[in-house]
């Protein structure tokens, strides 16, 4: 017989004034600023509030109170994206995370008790980590832990100035909810109106109503509202799954942008890197290619692509290569904003370092590759991969040098398809001339005795049997007889006779 399971322990973190927080997390500290929708002030910064701007004021009223007020339009899509960004980072702290729009994220806190003998203390530790994660991501949060997501959400949203509220166990939730207004329970409007009309003003009064009353009048929704008021919400969390790679932006407006020094930009990039890395950690991913876009003032942009030698979610490891790339940039205008995006990512299994491991080597590799890519171009650095082609000059292809993982592009769902590697072909020269160099055969009585190679006549000391390579009739047909010839004063050469015109070519050397 299995033990009876109560509502799941849930942590709710609420971001008060999320539209305002979302604006402020992507720019330097602002003065008087208000988020405006439909001509009305919805949220305002402390300097704006201090001079009399109030949420609900019309923009005209607000400007009358504060002439310097900066008005930013409400952007619900961006707010939702900011909430998703936080949810991604919080995935590192809980097995399941749920978005609770417009301003909250829910976490499965049931596992917190595994990290300590005292469940309440373990939940407090988890709460501390969640708040720290919020700060790292540029948010200010308020949270509560309780039985069930409805209870936790109500406590977090209406717990007043207290940043953390932990309701220890069954029954505690009901007691904590009792003084809260009905609005905290997020009831349907019709039910809220009826309850208000019959004199039920808070959650405690609602909990005291007979369960059948609400069920008779409002059906299942009414029964659920009664359970919630009594501190019980058995609904499971709906897992949040992110579909896109992380992207963060920082606005330098009002600050000195980059003209002669890369340091201000690098400083801003570090902030973005920390946030992007936190989001990758939450999803168990590592970036194998990043793109930093520098938006120039007044227009134009400069893109810096940063391939990494192996997937990594270590922001500190990205900074070395970033510094190298930024130091080599010559920008025509100051930078007004930065945008850091993950272009390719791969799953990174959790690894424990062994004694003697040197993670700094991986960082040094990334820095070295970045320096080379910045000066020589990305195409100058590659790893080779055998290709299943008979034409010698096409028998390999260049692939990105990725040490320790395979890159994944095009979104979280894309998976690399393993391909069987073609077998190595013996008897290939270590040097290949592309294009081949013409040579002239010299002989007596139909016998090849020497070859004129780049103006020098060299005696043929030995000649192998021919190896015929032909094909690609559908594109550019070729038909060649290859010989391995030992030439006096040179060594072994790879020559071929072109079947189309009979001419001889030097294609490589066995150096």
């Amino acid at each position, binding site marked *: 017989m299995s033990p009876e399971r109560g509502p799941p322990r849930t942590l709710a973190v609420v971001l008060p004034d999320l539209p305002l927080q979302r604006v402020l997390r992507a720019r330097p500290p602002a003065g008087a600023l208000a988020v405006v929708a439909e001509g009305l002030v919805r949220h305002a910064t402390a300097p704006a509030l201090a001079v009399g701007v109030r949420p609900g004021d019309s923009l005209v009223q607000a400007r009358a109170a504060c002439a310097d007020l900066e008005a930013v339009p409400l952007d619900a899509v961006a707010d939702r994206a900011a909430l998703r960004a936080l949810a991604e980072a919080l995935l590192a702290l809980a097995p399941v995370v749920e978005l609770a729009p417009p301003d909250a994220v829910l976490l499965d806190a049931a596992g917190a008790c595994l990290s300590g003998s005292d469940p309440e203390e373990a939940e407090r530790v988890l709460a501390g980590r969640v708040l720290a994660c919020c700060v790292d991501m540029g948010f200010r949060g308020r949270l509560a832990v309780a039985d069930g997501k409805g209870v936790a959400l109500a406590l977090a949203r209406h717990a007043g100035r207290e940043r953390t509220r932990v309701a220890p166990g069954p029954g505690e939730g009901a007691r904590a909810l009792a003084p809260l207004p009905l609005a905290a329970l997020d009831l349907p409007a019709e039910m809220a109106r009826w309850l208000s009309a019959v004199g039920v003003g808070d959650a405690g009064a609602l909990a005291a109503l007979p369960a059948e009353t609400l069920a008779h009048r409002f059906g299942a929704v009414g029964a659920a509202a009664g359970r919630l008021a009594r501190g019980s919400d058995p609904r499971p969390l709906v897992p949040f799954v992110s579909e896109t790679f992380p992207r963060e932006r920082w606005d330098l407006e009002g600050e000195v942008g980059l003209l002669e020094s890369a340091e201000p930009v690098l400083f801003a990039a570090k902030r973005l890197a920390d946030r992007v890395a936190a989001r990758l950690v939450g999803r168990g991913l590592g970036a194998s290619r990043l793109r930093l876009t520098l938006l120039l003032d007044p227009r134009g942009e400069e893109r810096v692509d940063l391939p990494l030698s192996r997937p990594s979610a270590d922001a500190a490891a990205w900074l070395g290569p970033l510094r190298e790339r930024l130091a080599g940039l010559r920008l025509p205008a100051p930078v007004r904003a930065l945008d850091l995006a993950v272009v390719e990512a791969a799953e990174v299994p959790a690894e424990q370092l062994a*004694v*003697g491991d*040197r993670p700094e*080597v*991986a960082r*040094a*590799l990334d*820095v*070295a*590759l970045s*320096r*080379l890519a910045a*000066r*020589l*171009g990305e195409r*100058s*650095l*590659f*790893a*080779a*991969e*055998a290709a299943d082609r008979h034409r*010698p000059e096409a*028998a*390999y292809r*260049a692939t990105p*040098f*990725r*040490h320790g993982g395979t890159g994944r592009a095009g979104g979280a769902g894309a998976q690399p398809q393993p391909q069987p590697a073609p077998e*190595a*072909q*013996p*008897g*290939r*020269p*270590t*040097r*290949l*001339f*592309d294009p081949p160099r013409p040579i002239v055969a010299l002989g007596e009585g139909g016998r090849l005795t020497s070859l004129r190679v780049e103006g020098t006549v060299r005696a043929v000391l030995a000649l192998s049997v021919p190896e015929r390579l032909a094909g690609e009739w559908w594109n550019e047909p070729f038909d060649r007889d290859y010989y391995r010839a*030992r*030439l006096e*004063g*040179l*060594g*072994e*050469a790879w020559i071929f006779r072109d079947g189309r015109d009979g001419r001889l070519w030097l294609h*490589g*050397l*066995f*150096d």
Partner: protein
Amino acid sequence: MGTATRQQEILEELRRQIHRMERRPARREGVLACGLPEVEARLPGGGFPRGCLSSLRGGPASGKTGVALSALRQAQAEGGLAAFVDGRGEFYPPAALSLGVDLARLLIVRPGTARGELLPGLWAAEVLLGSGAFRAVAIDVPLRGVPAARAEPILRRLRAAAEKGGAAALLLSGPGDPAIPAAVRIDLDAVRLAEIDHVA
């Protein structure tokens, strides 16, 4: 009491072992074998010294590239990364594959030969050697015709980078190239081609 003393001794020994491992210098010492007995017999210590510049001199088809690739294969067999700086644009990876080189762990740097510049290849080699991330780096950059006064400081920097990073630096050079200030020099023309046939 005896058990406690024994535990204390074990702990002390473990501490000493950890201390030894932690103070292990970044620079790797000893030599990097190339797996070719005919070549190893001619090298002091039986291999290319780590943290040093070695010169592999020979004609266009003397087998020097094959020897370098064999050394890179050995470096990979030790669990390290290897790099090939292909300043001439002639390196043919399928040959490396047939020699047992793991192409996925071989970084190829082809700085471009259009302008015939010398510096990008040597600069790339310096960056790779100094990074400490590679166990062996083969450098194939045309040096013929470069005045010794210009080549010498660059090669000295290469040597310093190899010392810093601990990698075995294998510089391929031809008969007309300036003298290389290398710790080890091997003339592949002197090694009979028949002896290293299996390289190719």
